[in-house]
């Protein structure tokens, strides 16, 4: 009798080692303290005094747990003793008390005003359970192996009886409470009862599992096989089947999960054969699949307290305990194998076991890094390219296509706790490559739609349900539809000293329905910058803050979807400003203020919605030129007011046609057809004497520059072009690249004369079914050739859309060998190099450069030069997106420092400090990641809920059933039959 008990105790002996305390208490508590302090830092400004006291209490409690665990570990280790039942009971009580306290105080700790994107209270509680439950489980396991004087069979029988009795008592109590409402239990008593019952249940279950294990071992090989068969194979498969009906805590319905479950089960079921080498191989195989068991154990561990409810709610609810049982059996299999097979050796088996256990996680990690390498190359080539240097993709196109298909499969598949976020962290730094971008990338490299290539297969492919469950990221459609009108826009002075600052106070009124959004475009000249933004919330005019643009847009969407008070000001890709304010109640009026700043000599007009607003002229002398120089960075901006520009000599430059020929997969005309098309187009523009040719798909080859009448030369060059027909046609990127190359070569002489005296007119020649995949932002390039703001596209010989060539005149400026061209009326000229000290202007009449005649004045105020630096950085990023990884952070900092918004940043008004803090964290994450990545998928608009009534057949069935039921009920209760009237 004593021996039986001792056997059971021996089963848990391995766990009594003091080092386990380090793994289940000290380390998890340290991590949890770090996480909780991070959460506190984010929301502390929103917390009420009671909340702060509660947070302090929680922190001290955690400190106590951490100290107790660590001291106990140190003491046991010093005395070389194992943990006893007193320490186990103490740990169990303290950890449960901690969880109890945290859950009961969660409402005070995280104020109700905190939005989920700032801090998700559910996630915070989940973390507490994740990091505290190992200690609870460990202590419970130690306690469950206590000795009794009972016979093992009676002991197990009693335990089993109690295990069944507790849920039954609960079931009865639930029903009584439901039937008889007068049973007024206080919430605390009920909670205590729940915790005690759950704990008892857990202890009993562990005790029974240990007893069953020992019993099975005693029975010999057959007993062990039967036990491991049930626990290792049948119970996990049953659990997975239950999971297909109730996807809790996540949807695990993927072939890979079933396959691994079966393999793991089989490896556990196979008995040892007596051959040492074979048995050791089997032991290593069990170590290999242990991470799989451990993963499911850890995923379900926080939900172990729910096992009682799971059993009450559904008979098969006990399957929630399958991972725990599997974990115990798997641990014992490895532990027993170690004792039997390794004769007390330590180093070799431990190294082998750890090595085997790391194989699956290592394979997954390596695979994620391989995906990251392939995807990064493809993503950077498309979304962060150096337009001039990267004209040919230097990776394998097939590898890129495969990686994209794999990513698509992964996104369409199941999302499981820990693993999905781990993969995402490695590959995308915790961010998301949106579906639309994955599809676009695939289209670019393959020339076809992803949906055509995707088979829908894959080991992690879910059965169509995971996708549905993932797509809950939706926004209200109503937010966009109702009109909010601008009632007034008043301009006021906000200071001037060599520059002008004007504030426009905009009053908006909602003429539509509840929760409407104000959205308006504001067109401003390029020399006007935004230096301030405010939104009136309540009676207070809350100043906006500058953040990285995509972060601010994401946060605005998050706040807007929660019906709070955000205001957002951004630059759109075409360079216009966009103002959004939300929400508006019916007939509500709200006020927002925008501050504009511009240098002296300018008198800008802006257009807000359909209203023109004159900001008024800046003081100081007419004819002054302001230069914003960025020392050491290269380049500067020159502001030329209209008054000064009218004294500068202008020139009319000669256009030439630059053809971008479509070499994408199976879409554009055949190479032999291009010369004829070029001839037709040239015939439309008799003044054009030369043409340049570029072959393009997602790669680019310059074919050459020819005399427009040299048809034979053009034909030969096209026929000799080596660019393979594949991928999609990126015409806009080809234009950007050619523009940058034109700008770099403006100083050189050409057959038409000096390089800067000619300008390109781009014509993309393509087919009807061209696969185009441009995601363009052309605004940074339109200033290179002021005469032509974009490019023309002609499809299968249609020249009607080409329009006429521009007759605009321009001013050509030079500084230290760097050329810049600006419009006739003056505005802003960007110089890629130089410091603006020796300015010259081209005099077309004399055919030479002469001094500008006015000395550029340095921009006044501290802010303006900083702002100009931010703008210069922004221009450099737009023209060379590969610089963004390093330059974006600098631009954002300059923008913040100067208070002036640039296209890479945005002004946003948020309600409180906690939102701002979360934004700061999000911004850091964004600045460390690739520009192509986003925080989440594009939200889907919420389809209105069509609360359709049940069909006629269902309604008729209801009515029929009602009659039958009522009649049957009456007949039964009162034995009444309908009398004849």
């Amino acid at each position, binding site marked *: 009798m004593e021996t039986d008990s001792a056997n059971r105790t021996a089963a848990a002996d391995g766990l009594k080692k003091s080092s386990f305390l380090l793994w289940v208490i000290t380390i998890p508590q340290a991590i949890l303290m770090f996480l909780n302090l991070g959460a506190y830092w984010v929301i502390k400004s929103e917390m009420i005094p009671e909340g702060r006291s509660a947070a302090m209490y929680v922190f001290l409690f955690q400190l106590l747990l951490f100290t107790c665990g660590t001291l106990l570990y140190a003491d046991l280790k010093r005395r070389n003793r194992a943990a006893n039942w007193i320490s186990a009971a103490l740990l169990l009580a303290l950890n449960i008390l901690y969880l109890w306290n945290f859950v009961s105080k969660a409402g005070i700790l995280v104020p109700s005003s905190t939005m989920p994107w700032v801090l998700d209270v559910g996630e915070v509680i989940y973390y507490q359970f994740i990091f505290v439950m190992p200690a609870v489980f460990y202590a419970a396991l130690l306690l469950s192996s206590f000795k009794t004087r009972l016979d093992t069979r009676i002991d197990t029988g009693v335990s089993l009886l109690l295990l069944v009795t507790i849920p039954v008592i609960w079931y009865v109590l639930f029903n009584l409470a439901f039937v008889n409402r007068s049973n007024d239990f206080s919430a605390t008593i009920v909670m205590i009862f729940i915790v005690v019952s759950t704990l008892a249940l857990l202890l009993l279950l562990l005790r029974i599992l240990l007893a069953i294990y020992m019993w099975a071992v005693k029975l010999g090989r057959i007993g062990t096989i039967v036990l491991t068969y049930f626990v290792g194979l049948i119970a996990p498969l049953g659990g997975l089947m239950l999971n297909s009906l109730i996807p809790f805590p996540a949807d695990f319905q993927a072939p890979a999960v079933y396959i691994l479950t079966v393999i793991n089960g089989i490896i556990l079921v196979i008995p040892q054969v007596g051959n040492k080498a074979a048995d050791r191989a089997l032991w290593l195989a069990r170590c290999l699949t242990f991470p799989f068991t451990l993963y499911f154990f850890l995923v379900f561990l926080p939900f172990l307290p729910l096992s009682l409810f799971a059993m009450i709610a559904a008979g098969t609810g006990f399957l929630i305990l399958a991972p725990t049982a599997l974990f115990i059996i798997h641990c014992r299999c490895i532990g027993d194998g170690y004792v039997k097979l390794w004769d007390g050796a330590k180093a070799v088996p431990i190294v082998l076991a750890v090595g085997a256990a790391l194989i699956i996680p290592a394979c997954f990690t390596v695979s994620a890094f391989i995906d990251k390498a392939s995807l990064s190359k493809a993503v950077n080539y498309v979304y962060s390219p150096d337009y001039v240097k990267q004209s040919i993709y230097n990776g394998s196109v097939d590898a890129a296509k495969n990686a994209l298909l794999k990513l698509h499969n992964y996104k369409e598949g199941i999302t499981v706790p820990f693993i999905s976020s781990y993969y995402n962290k490695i590959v995308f730094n915790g961010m998301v490559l949106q579906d639309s971008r994955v599809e676009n990338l695939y289209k670019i490299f393959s020339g076809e739609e992803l949906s055509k290539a995707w088979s829908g297969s894959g080991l992690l492919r879910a059965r169509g349900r995971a996708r549905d469950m993932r797509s809950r990221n939706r926004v209200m459609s109503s937010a966009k539809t109702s009109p909010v009108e601008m009632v007034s826009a008043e301009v006021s002075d906000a200071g001037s000293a060599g520059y002008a600052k004007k504030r426009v106070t905009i009053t908006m009124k909602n003429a539509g329905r509840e929760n409407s959004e104000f959205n308006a475009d504001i067109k401003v000249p390029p020399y006007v910058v935004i230096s301030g933004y405010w939104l009136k919330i309540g009676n207070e005019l809350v100043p906006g803050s500058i953040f990285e643009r995509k972060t601010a847009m994401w946060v605005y969407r998050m706040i807007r979807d929660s019906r709070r008070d955000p205001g957002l000001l951004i630059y759109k890709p075409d360079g216009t400003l966009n103002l959004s304010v939300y929400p508006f109640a019916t007939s509500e009026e709200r006020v927002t203020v925008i501050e504009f700043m511009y240098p002296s000599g300018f008198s800008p007009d802006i257009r807000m919605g359909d209203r023109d607003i004159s900001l008024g002229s800046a003081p100081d002398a007419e004819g002054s030129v302001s230069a914003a120089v960025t020392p050491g960075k290269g380049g500067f901006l020159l502001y030329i007011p209209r008054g000064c520009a009218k004294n500068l000599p202008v020139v009319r430059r000669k256009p030439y046609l630059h053809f971008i020929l479509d070499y994408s997969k199976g879409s554009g005309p055949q190479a032999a057809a291009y010369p004829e098309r070029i001839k037709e187009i040239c015939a439309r523009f008799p003044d054009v004497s030369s043409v340049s040719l570029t072959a393009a798909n997602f790669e680019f080859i310059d074919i050459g520059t020819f005399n427009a009448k040299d048809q034979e030369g053009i034909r030969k060059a096209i026929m000799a072009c080596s660019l393979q027909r594949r991928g999609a046609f990126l015409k806009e990127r080809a234009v950007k690249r050619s523009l940058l190359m034109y700008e770099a070569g403006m100083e050189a002489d050409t057959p038409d004369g000096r390089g800067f005296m000619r300008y390109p007119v781009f014509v993309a020649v393509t087919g009807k079914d061209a696969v185009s995949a441009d995601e363009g932002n052309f605004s940074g390039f339109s200033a290179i050739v002021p005469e032509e703001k974009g490019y023309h596209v002609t499809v299968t010989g249609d020249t009607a859309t080409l329009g006429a060539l521009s007759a605009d005149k321009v001013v050509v400026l030079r500084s230290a060998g760097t050329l810049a061209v600006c419009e006739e009326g003056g505005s802003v000229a960007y110089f890629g190099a130089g410091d603006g000290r020796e300015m010259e202007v081209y005099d077309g009449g004399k055919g030479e450069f002469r001094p500008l005649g006015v000395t550029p004045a340095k921009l006044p105020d501290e802010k303006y030069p900083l702002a100009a630096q931010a703008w210069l950085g922004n221009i450099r990023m737009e023209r060379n997106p590969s610089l963004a990884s390093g330059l974006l952070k600098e631009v954002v900092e300059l923008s913040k420092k100067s208070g002036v918004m640039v296209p890479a940043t945005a002004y946003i008004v948020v309600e409180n400090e906690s939102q701002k803090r979360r934004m700061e964290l999000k911004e850091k994450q964004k600045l460390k990641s690739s520009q192509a990545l986003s925080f989440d998928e594009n939200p889907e608009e919420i389809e*209105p809920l069509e609360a359709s*009534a049940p069909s006629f057949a269902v309604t008729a069935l209801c009515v029929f059933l009602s009659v039958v039921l009522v009649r049957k009920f009456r007949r039964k209760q009162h034995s009444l039959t309908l009398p004849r009237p």
Partner: protein
Amino acid sequence: MPGNTVRSAFIAAIAFVLLISLPEIAPSVHGKLFCFSVAKASSFFLGSPAETLEDRSYRIDADGVPVNVSEACSAFRYFVLLYTLLMGTYAFYHPIRRAVRAALPVLLLSYVISVAANTARVIASVYVYRIGAAMLPVNYERALHMCAGAAIFLTVTIMSFAVFERRFSGGNR
């Protein structure tokens, strides 16, 4: 067939045919009589305003869940069936003249009950949607709405029929 059953079936059939063809004669009956009342009552209980859309349906923005109350949600057919049932029941216990006299009050009663039941169904749909959106795949939502609607209609019909029969059977049950 006993006389009272014939009378009941006759009156019920007339009630059914007359009412079911009502939208053919007055197409706006769905919108003006049913959708409007249900939308207003639902918006009152949900605490969110109901707006009229262009297609004469109504939109309730139930704190993040936009609900359309359109012709398909009017539960007009339920009203017709309920009226048929109640009229048939009344005619079963009373002579035909009294049944004809009761036609209008029963019509009003059926209207009130069906609007109340439909309002409860719309409100339940919002809650079902919220719970479903958090826990269940999209595919299940439609079935869930149908089940919720059927459960409510069944409950309301059982209660209405039981009370109505007890009240108007004249002790002849």
